[in-house]
C-alpha cells in the first residue's frame, strides 16, 4: 500500500511537486499518509484533497491538517464536477486499480492533467529474477511476494507509453527514476519508477514548470 515508503519514494514526491504549479488545485488518488499532499501544500501553496481507503492513513492525513475522503478511488472520483482540479495525481496507485482506463479517463474529466507514477515491472532486476530464477520478481522497488502484493496490474514503461498512444493521451512530460535519481538512458530497462504528466490529446498544453530533477 501507499504507506510503505523507501528513499526512492521521497524523490518521486519531489519530482511530482516540481510538476505542480504554484497554488494549483490538486486531487491525490490513493494519497496514503498524506506525505505528498503535505509537500504540495508547503512547497506550492497548493489546495489539495486526497482519497484514501485505509483507516489509519486517513487519520494520518487529518493529523497533518489535510482534507481527505475515505473511500475507494473509483467511487470517490465520480462526484467531482468536470474540471474541478488543475492536477489529479495517481502516484503508486494505478497498478492497484483494475479499471485503469476508466480511472485515467475520470481523472482527466475532473482535472486538466493527470500525473501518473508507477513501478516499472520491466526493470532489469525484475527481468533477471524472471529469466534466471524463474520466479515472480521481488525487488527493492517491488517488495511484495506474488501472494501478498496489492498490485493487480503489471506494466512496463513501454506498455504504458503504448497505452497512452492508443488512448489518445498526450505525454506532457516523463521522468524516469533509477536507483540513483533520474535517468534518461534505456528507461524501460533501468528505471524503477516512471512519472508521467498527461493530458488529453488535442487539449491545449497546460503550462507547467519543468520537473525538479534530482
Amino acid at each position, binding site marked *: *500500500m*501507499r*504507506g*510503505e*515508503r523507501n528513499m526512492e519514494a*521521497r524523490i518521486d514526491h519531489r519530482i511530482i511537486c516540481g510538476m505542480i504549479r504554484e497554488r494549483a488545485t490538486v486531487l491525490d488518488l490513493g494519497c*496514503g*499518509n498524506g*506525505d505528498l499532499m*503535505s509537500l504540495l501544500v*508547503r512547497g506550492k501553496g497548493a*489546495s489539495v*484533497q486526497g482519497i484514501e481507503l*485505509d*483507516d*489509519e*492513513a*486517513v*487519520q*494520518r*492525513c*487529518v*493529523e*497533518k*491538517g*489535510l*482534507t*481527505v*475522503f*475515505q*473511500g475507494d478511488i473509483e467511487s470517490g472520483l465520480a*462526484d*467531482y*464536477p468536470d474540471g*474541478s482540479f488543475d492536477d489529479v495525481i495517481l502516484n503508486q496507485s494505478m497498478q492497484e486499480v483494475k479499471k485503469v482506463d476508466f480511472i485515467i479517463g475520470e481523472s482527466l474529466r475532473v482535472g486538466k492533467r493527470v500525473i501518473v507514477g508507477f513501478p516499472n515491472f520491466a526493470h532489469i532486476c525484475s527481468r533477471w529474477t524472471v529469466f534466471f530464477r524463474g520466479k515472480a520478481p521481488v525487488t527493492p522497488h517491488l517488495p511484495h511476494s506474488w501472494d501478498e502484493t496489492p498490485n493487480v496490474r503489471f506494466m512496463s514503461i513501454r506498455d504504458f507509453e503504448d497505452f497512452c498512444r492508443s488512448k489518445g493521451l498526450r505525454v506532457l512530460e516523463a521522468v524516469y527514476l533509477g536507483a540513483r535519481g533520474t535517468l534518461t538512458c534505456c528507461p524501460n530497462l533501468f528505471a524503477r519508477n516512471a512519472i508521467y504528466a498527461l493530458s488529453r490529446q488535442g487539449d491545449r498544453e497546460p503550462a507547467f514548470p519543468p520537473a525538479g530533477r534530482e
Partner: protein
Amino acid sequence: MSEGNVGLTGTKEFTFGEPPDVVTLESGRKIGPVTVAYETYGRLNEDRSNAILICHALSGDAHAAGYHEGETAPGWWDAMIGPGKAFDTDRYFVICSNVIGGCKGSTGPSSPNPQTGKPYALDFPVITVSDMVNVQRYLIDHLGIDRLFCVAGGSMGGMQALQWVSSYPERVMSAIPVATTLKHSPQQIAFDEVIRQSIMGDPAWRKGNYYDHGQPQNGLSVARMIGHITFMSDTSMEAKFSRKLKNGGYGFSLEDDFEVEGYLRYRGDSFVKRFDANSYLYITKAMDYFDLSGDLFLPGKQRVDSRFLVISFTSDWLYPSSQSLDIVRALKRRRIAATYCELKSTWGHDAFLVEVAEETRLITNFLRGITATLSPLHHDFPGSRNHETAASPAENRRVS
C-alpha cells in the same frame, strides 16, 4: 496529554423575543418570549474566535459536560468535551443549548403559555431544525460571538450543524456533522411516525393535555423502546443480550423473559421520568421535516469557506454511511473541501456517543488543522503535527 473534566457545571437561561419583538418560525407562526437553556465550558478568547457550538440529538439537553450539583452522571458528551478532550476546553469555548421544543429548560410544549399561564401543550407551534438553529443564533448573538469556530453534533445535532452552514455560512468556520443526514428518509420518517402514534394512541396522552394528570407512560415508554432498537445494531444487541434469559428459563407467560425485553422496558420507564411526551412528538416532527437536499443545502452561489468533517459509522443503519456520503457528494459538487471518514464500529447509531477514541483523534486533529490555517505563523500547539517538515519514522511505517 492528560484529560480532565470540566467539573461542576450549571445550566443558564437566556430569554428573548418579548412581545412585540417575537420570533417568527419557519411555519410563519410567531412565538415569544423564548427561553433558551444553555451551558458553557472553557473561556471565550479575546477576539471571540474560539467558540464551538455543540448541538444535541433528539433526547439530549444543554448539559453536555461536567456534573450538576448532587448528580453522579456527567453530561451526555462528557467523554468528548473537557480539558484535553476532543473539544478541548483549554483551547475552546464550548456552548451547548437545549433546542426550542425541548423540555430541559428551553421553551417547549411543556412551558407555560404566557397567554394562559398553563403549559402550551398542542398550542405550541410546530418547530423545525431551522427554528432550532435560529434560536441558537439569538444565543450566539447574546454571547457576543460573531463567528463560530465550529458547529458539531451527532444525529439531530448533525442536522443542526448542516442547517447552521446553510442558514449562516458566513458565521461558521467549520462543521462536524456526525452520523447524520441531509434529509430524513421514508424509513426514518416511518420510525418517527410509529413513535408518535404510540404516544398519541395512549389514552393518557389526552390530546396533549396531560400535564395535570401525568405523562402518557405506556405510550412514551414504547416510543422510547422503538428508538432504542434503532440506536443499536444486530451485532451490538447480540453482544449485549444474545438470547439471555432474566430468570434462567422460559416463564411460559407474557412477562419479560429475555434480557433484551427487560432492558427496553427499563429504558422506556426511565425515559418517562425525564422527558416530556409532547416534546418527543414535536422534535421527531422537526427531524422529519428536515430536508436540505438539492439546492436547499448551502443555497445561493456565494462562496462557502466553511470546512467540513463528516463522520459516519459502519454499523449505523438508522443514519447509514450512504447518507453521510450524500452530504459529502453535495459538498464536492459545490467544490467545498470536506474530509469524510467512516469509522468502524459495531455500536450502531449509538456509536457517535461510544466510539470516543477514534472520534477524538479525528476531531482533535481536524480542529487543530483549522486553527493552523487561520494563523500560519503560530503553530504552537503541543504535540501538533500539522506542519512537520519531514516524515517521522512512524510515518514511514507500513499502515496496512
